[in-house]
């Protein structure tokens, strides 16, 4: 019984990881129609940011406050990845609006460069980020049924990020501007919105979210130059399955792929589980090419 309960928990946990990794993509892809193949590398930047902050804490600050580094690491990875995103938008992405296919290729070039950059700076081997001690251990629900704090923490982080995005997008002046620009650029511009600024900020925001995901992933996985490549296909599938441009879609997509993965892996094995999930998603998209949550639009070419 415990096994099944734990499996449900694992499903939710993996879903939350996928959601977190896909949130940034939901912003850059969903709102801006830029396919950022370097999204995985922004996750990697976030993870290395956590590594840097950890090293600063362990080297220059008293050991007693080491455990607090994570609270600094989260905003730090958000801002570092965000700055990289902002620079990338200014240098490269701004040439690519309306050229979705080209954006795939150019950003793939970016991902190559960023990976090699990480290799040059930090070396090819994985680095170790020590988790703060307050995240070690697990919540004991029943004897034999333990829910690791780290996974619970990531779930909370996802909820926090979701809420923040919701308020930013739908309840703030800035969000209104973003949506206006994404829906009708010319109209928004003629109403006095600085679309160039909005573009840059939105892309930076999406990249920053990827950075947070990277910071959180240091709790569970490896930190190396190729960290991002492990997540990139999964996160794209999450966004596409959920429906591009919809926050609810990303949540639903992450949930379906996460639980699908763990359940099928539990019933069969990891290899077959992965193959089955992707096959099912591809088949599903034949039936609903726009994903689960579609935004109705009358325009013919999107």
């Amino acid at each position, binding site marked *: 019984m415990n096994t099944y309960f734990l499996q449900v928990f694992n499903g939710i946990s993996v879903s939350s990881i996928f959601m977190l990794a896909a949130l940034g993509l939901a912003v850059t892809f969903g709102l801006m129609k830029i396919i950022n193949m370097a999204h995985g590398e922004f996750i990697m930047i976030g993870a290395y940011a956590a590594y840097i902050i950890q090293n600063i804490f362990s080297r220059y600050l008293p050991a007693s406050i080491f455990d607090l580094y994570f609270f600094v690491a989260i905003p730090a990875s958000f801002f570092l990845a965000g700055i990289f995103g902002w620079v990338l938008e200014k240098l490269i992405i701004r040439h690519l609006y309306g050229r979705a296919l080209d954006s795939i*290729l150019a950003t793939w070039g970016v991902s190559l460069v960023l990976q090699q950059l990480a290799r040059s700076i930090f070396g090819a081997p994985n680095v170790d980020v020590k988790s703060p001690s307050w995240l070690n251990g697990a919540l004991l629900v029943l004897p034999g049924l333990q829910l690791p704090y780290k996974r619970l923490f990531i779930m909370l982080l996802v909820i926090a990020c979701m809420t923040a995005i919701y308020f930013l997008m739908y309840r703030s002046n800035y969000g209104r501007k973003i949506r206006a620009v994404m829906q009708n650029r010319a109209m928004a511009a003629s109403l006095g919105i600085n679309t160039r600024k909005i573009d840059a900020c939105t892309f930076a925001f999406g990249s920053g979210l990827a950075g947070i995901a990277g910071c959180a992933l240091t709790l569970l996985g490896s930190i190396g130059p190729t960290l991002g490549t492990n997540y990139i296909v999964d996160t794209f599938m999450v966004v596409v399955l959920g429906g591009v441009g919809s926050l609810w879609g990303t949540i639903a997509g992450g949930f379906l792929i996460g639980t699908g993965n763990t359940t099928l892996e539990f019933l069969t094995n990891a290899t077959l589980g992965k193959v089955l999930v992707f096959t099912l998603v591809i088949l599903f998209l034949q039936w609903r090419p726009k994903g689960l949550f579609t935004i109705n639009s009358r325009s013919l*070419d999107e």
Partner: protein
Amino acid sequence: MSVKTFLKTPSNKVFFVIVLLLLAAPLFLSVFRINLLGKFISYAILAMGIDLIWGYTGILSLGHGVFFGLGAYAMGMYLKLEAAHGKLPDFMAWSGLEKLPAIWAPFSNPLSLIFIVLIPAFLAAVIGYLTFKNRIRGVYFSILSQALSLIFVVLFIGQQAYTGGTNGLTSFRTMFGLPLAADNTKYLVYYAAVFLLFIVYLYCRFLIGHRFGKILIAIRDGENRVRFSGYDPAVYKIFVYISSAVIAGIAGAVFVPQVGIISPAEMGIVPSIEMVIWVAIGGRGTLIGAVIGAILVNGLKSGISESFPEVWSYFLGLTFIAVVIFMPEGLVGIVKKYAGRIAIRREKKDKTAEKAPSVN
């Protein structure tokens, strides 16, 4: 089409010269370099297939490594069985198989080489039919093709007993009885590759030279208008996707005897995207650009990575960004631009020359 009309267009002329150079290459290069060049030729064939769907039709497939791999595996399975001399291939024995699996059985016959074409064609037909009929297009198709490539890599690695796993298929000895390690066989395979390059070029040229090609370009530039004009874009897309997959399969089959190995590493997402890079750098939407791009990029890769392995990633990444943003038509685009300028200048000169009294 006579040779004369064929050579009328500049790009055909350039291609013709390239083929001649390739034919003459064994005069100047060592067997090792010829072998390497043969590998680049297989990539050039592949690049033309990608250009057909991407450059001309606007479908960006990030999973073409799969078709390349399927063609290569078909060839590899045949060569492997030839090397095994009726016994069970070595990796099957370790993996616990007792007799040859059914999917391998036909490959003991040379006629089975037709699968190099049939398997990619079949897979492309199924995928193309589903996705294009359901109007999945643009980036959605790209992302799906990426997932497809991931699925195949995971499957091929996982089914070690049937595919050789990560090791892939290797240790081929002979091809139609000729020892692969012998120089003569290498030249033969090389010339076969050049021949196939020529044939595939003619085929693509034929496709795009006719009404069909115009419709492909129309689909790329405005699919809905094509639909409203009474054409069904899906049919054209499926056909061109199958063509492209078959070309990739052929390229894979040319690759295997020259390199001596096919493994899932050649099928994944990264090699698939690299294939698109060749076309982008050479010049999308021109067959000659695809050929030049594939040979050039791979030549550089061999050269640069020999001396500076760390630099290669930077170089490739930055070149690619620059090409996509600043010169979307690639090298061919640049040459065309300059050729255009020179032509204009020459015309001006001609005009002034006409005014002046001529010597003749």
